[in-house]
């Protein structure tokens, strides 16, 4: 099992969710985060005083999936979250050792 962790532009969330639902992924966790990559930040000006804003608001979505599904999930997220502009985000994949559904006690892939 793997966790696919993607940092995306906030307004792309619905499209990403639809794309994942379409390939049979039925759950995800979303967190509001701030960060920067190649996009760096931007400047804001208040009454003539400029401030550099280095951390931009993004959403981090986490999806736990069976290992064989990972490629399809990556493809779905990249397809839906892409605008072609700098700042589209990144996808990370990490190993997942165990999963438990609290209500039933099911474990691993049956808990996803």
């Amino acid at each position, binding site marked *: 099992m793997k966790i696919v962790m993607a940092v995306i532009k906030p307004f792309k969330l619905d499209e990403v969710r639809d794309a994942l639902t379409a390939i049979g992924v039925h759950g995800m966790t979303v967190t509001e985060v701030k960060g920067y990559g190649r996009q760096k930040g931007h400047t*804001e*000006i*208040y*009454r*003539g*005083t400029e*401030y550099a*804003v280095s951390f931009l608001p993004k959403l981090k979505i986490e999806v736990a999936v069976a290992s064989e599904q990972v490629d399809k999930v990556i493809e779905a997220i990249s397809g839906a979250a892409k605008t072609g502009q700098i700042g589209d985000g990144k996808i990370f994949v990490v190993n997942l050792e165990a999963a438990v559904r609290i209500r039933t006690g099911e474990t691993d892939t049956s808990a996803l």
Partner: protein
Amino acid sequence: MSFKIPYRAGSALGLSAAMMVAAAPAFAQEVKLDTGDTAWMLTSTMLVLMMTIPGLALFYGGMVRKKNVLATIMQSFAITCLITLMWFFFGYSLVFTEGGESLNAYIGGFSKAMLAGVGNNTANALAPTIPEWVFLTFQMTFAIITPALITGAFAERMKFSAMMWFMALWMIFVYLPVAHWVWGGGFLGSAGVLDFAGGTVVHINAGIAGLVAAIIVGKRKGHGAENMAPHNLVLTMIGASLLWVGWFGFNAGSAVASNALAGAAMVNTQIATAAAALAWMFIEWIVIKKPSLLGILSGAVGGLVAITPAAGFVNPTGALIIGVVAGVLCYVAAVHVKKALGYDDSLDVFGVHGVGGIVGALLTGVLADVAINELGKDASLATQAYGVIVTIVYTAIVTAIILYIIKAVIGLRPTTAQEEEGLDVTLHGESVQ
């Protein structure tokens, strides 16, 4: 058509009428209340109170960092309560009663301390058609907003206890005397200085006190290095809009009657405000390349300030001119002059209220139109400048003295650690999550 004397005119005419009445003890029996005037002044009083809470509190609260929003809003609210009681104890009396032969040019007396002698059948000579209860409460709301305006200058870095001491002392030694000079029969009104709704007493006074306070209290820790961007301009927009709406009570209410002069003040207020807001927005659009919300809001408040002394003296074209000039000059002061001189007037009390107040006071002398108000017939730039300079000098000196005394006795600032962590949690034990 009966012509009512707007008490704020402070002209020789208004003054002599006031003195004549004061000399006649039978006055109390001659009160002729007007229900229309009274209804409008009850309404105006509530509008002006709304300018401070929640208007000014939100306007300022949105512009500070999130860790200081409650402390900032708390200042306006606490000042509202403090000044209310001080006005009841002696404030109203010191502004609006006779101070005796030698002193009256400078300060009133204590004859109405604790509102002694005010009753259901009394009216103030300056507002003979409304109950004195209403007049004194209306005036109270002006005394409340003036010190509250100053809090923007030292926002995010003054100890709450020092702020309370400062406001109490500033009220006694600056606001009450200056209000008496202009409105209560003191020497500025007698000299013919025109101030319809309080450009000099409220805005120049607060603007200069703010500048002095910003310098003496010192810059915020990290000023010029850390990000001090406003945390929520939606709050600031709500606050600025409440100020705008409330300002009809301030300016149109200063006719102290429900009449055509109040109507003129209303339309002038609306036009000057819109003109100043657009002036700031367009100049910012040209210079900084983007029209900002904070910019248009700041311009609007600058226009409201500038039209305040002129609202009942100029015609709508005059109001337009005052608005445009104020929008541009307030922009220059708040954005460029502040940066060049390096003082940390956090929320631009001087740039907006000081500069806007001076622009309005001076232009009232130039643009007064007798078709709007006969009392503007002797308007002159020189007389207006005299009022402005006297107020600036007096306020600057006395504000500095008060601040240095408080600094020596209890200190003005919280500890560096408290300032860095935020005043909300360190001074008030609360926070916004």
